[in-house]
C-alpha cells in the first residue's frame, strides 16, 4: 500500500487515535470526542427560539432532549450540544434551525470531558469542592455555569446527580485532563 497525502490519521484533542478514559476510584473520566458544539446568540429584540425543539434554558441552567442539549452561557446566549455530531457541520445545522439568530461553530474551540460516578453524587461533589469555587451542593442536575478551574475557563454542566461534564478550551485539553485526573486520583487516598 502506498501512502498518499490523504492518508492522514485523525487525532483527538488529547492527541490519541481513540478517546481517552481513566478510572479513578469511583470516578470515570472520559474524553467525549463526538460532541458537536455551536453557540447561539439573540440579536436585539429577538424572541427566544426553540432549535431542535429545545426549550432554551434560563440563567445558569441546562436542558437536554434526545441527542441535543443546551446550556445558558450569558444573557441571550446559549451553547447547543449535539451528541455524535462533532464531525459534521453542526453550526450549519443549527443555523438552518434559527436563521435569524447569530450562530458560531464551537466544536473546534472546545473539548468535553465527561465525569461519571459509580457511587452517586458524593464523589462528584468532592471533586468539585477540590477544583472550583462553586457550591457543589446547590449545583444540582440541570445546572450549568462557566467558571475558572486552575486558571483555565471551563463550562460545568451537571448532567445528573452522578454525572458532570467539563468543557474547556481545546488547546488546553492536556492541562485540563491532568487537573481533573490528578484531583480524582487523590480523592481515592
Amino acid at each position: 500500500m502506498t501512502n498518499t497525502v490523504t492518508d492522514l490519521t485523525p487525532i483527538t484533542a488529547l492527541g490519541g487515535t481513540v478517546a481517552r478514559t481513566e478510572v479513578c476510584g469511583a470516578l470515570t473520566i472520559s474524553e467525549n470526542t463526538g460532541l458537536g458544539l455551536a453557540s447561539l446568540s439573540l440579536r436585539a429584540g429577538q424572541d427566544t427560539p426553540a432549535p431542535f425543539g429545545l426549550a432554551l434554558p434560563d440563567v445558569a441552567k441546562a436542558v437536554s432532549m434526545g441527542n441535543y442539549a443546551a446550556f445558558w452561557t450569558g444573557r441571550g446566549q446559549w451553547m447547543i450540544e449535539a451528541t455524535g455530531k462533532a464531525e459534521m457541520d453542526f453550526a450549519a445545522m443549527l443555523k438552518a434551525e434559527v436563521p435569524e439568530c447569530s450562530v458560531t461553530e464551537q466544536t473546534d474551540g472546545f473539548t468535553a470531558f465527561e465525569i461519571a460516578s459509580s457511587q452517586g453524587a458524593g464523589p462528584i461533589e468532592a471533586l468539585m469542592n477540590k477544583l472550583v469555587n462553586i457550591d457543589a451542593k446547590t449545583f444540582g442536575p440541570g445546572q450549568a455555569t462557566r467558571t475558572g478551574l486552575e486558571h483555565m475557563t471551563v463550562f460545568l454542566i451537571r448532567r445528573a446527580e452522578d454525572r458532570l461534564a467539563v468543557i474547556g478550551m481545546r488547546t488546553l485539553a492536556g492541562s485540563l485532563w491532568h487537573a481533573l485526573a490528578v484531583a480524582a486520583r487523590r480523592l481515592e487516598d
Partner: protein
Amino acid sequence: MLIPHPLLGLRDSQEFTYLGDANLMFRPDAAAENAEAAFCDYVFQRDNPAGVHRELWFHEQGDRSWLVVTRDTTTHEILGAELASNVKLGAAE
C-alpha cells in the same frame, strides 16, 4: 472576596477582571463644542475617593457580562452590583 452577581449570585472575585471608574461608560459627545476639554477630563481625570466607589468589573470567567460594582475602597466591602447594560439603559432614559 465574593461579588454578588445580579444573575448568578455570589461569585469568586478571581473570575472577574477590573477596569476602573464606572463613569468610563459615559463617553463625551465628540461633536460637542467643548469636546476637546471633555475628552481631556474623560481620559485623564479620575476621582480617587477614600470610601464608596462605583467601578466596572468584567465577568471574564463567567457569563462575560460587565458589572457596575459599588465598593468601599477603605474596607473593600462590596455594597452592591448591577449589570452595566442596565445602568447604561437606565441613564439613557
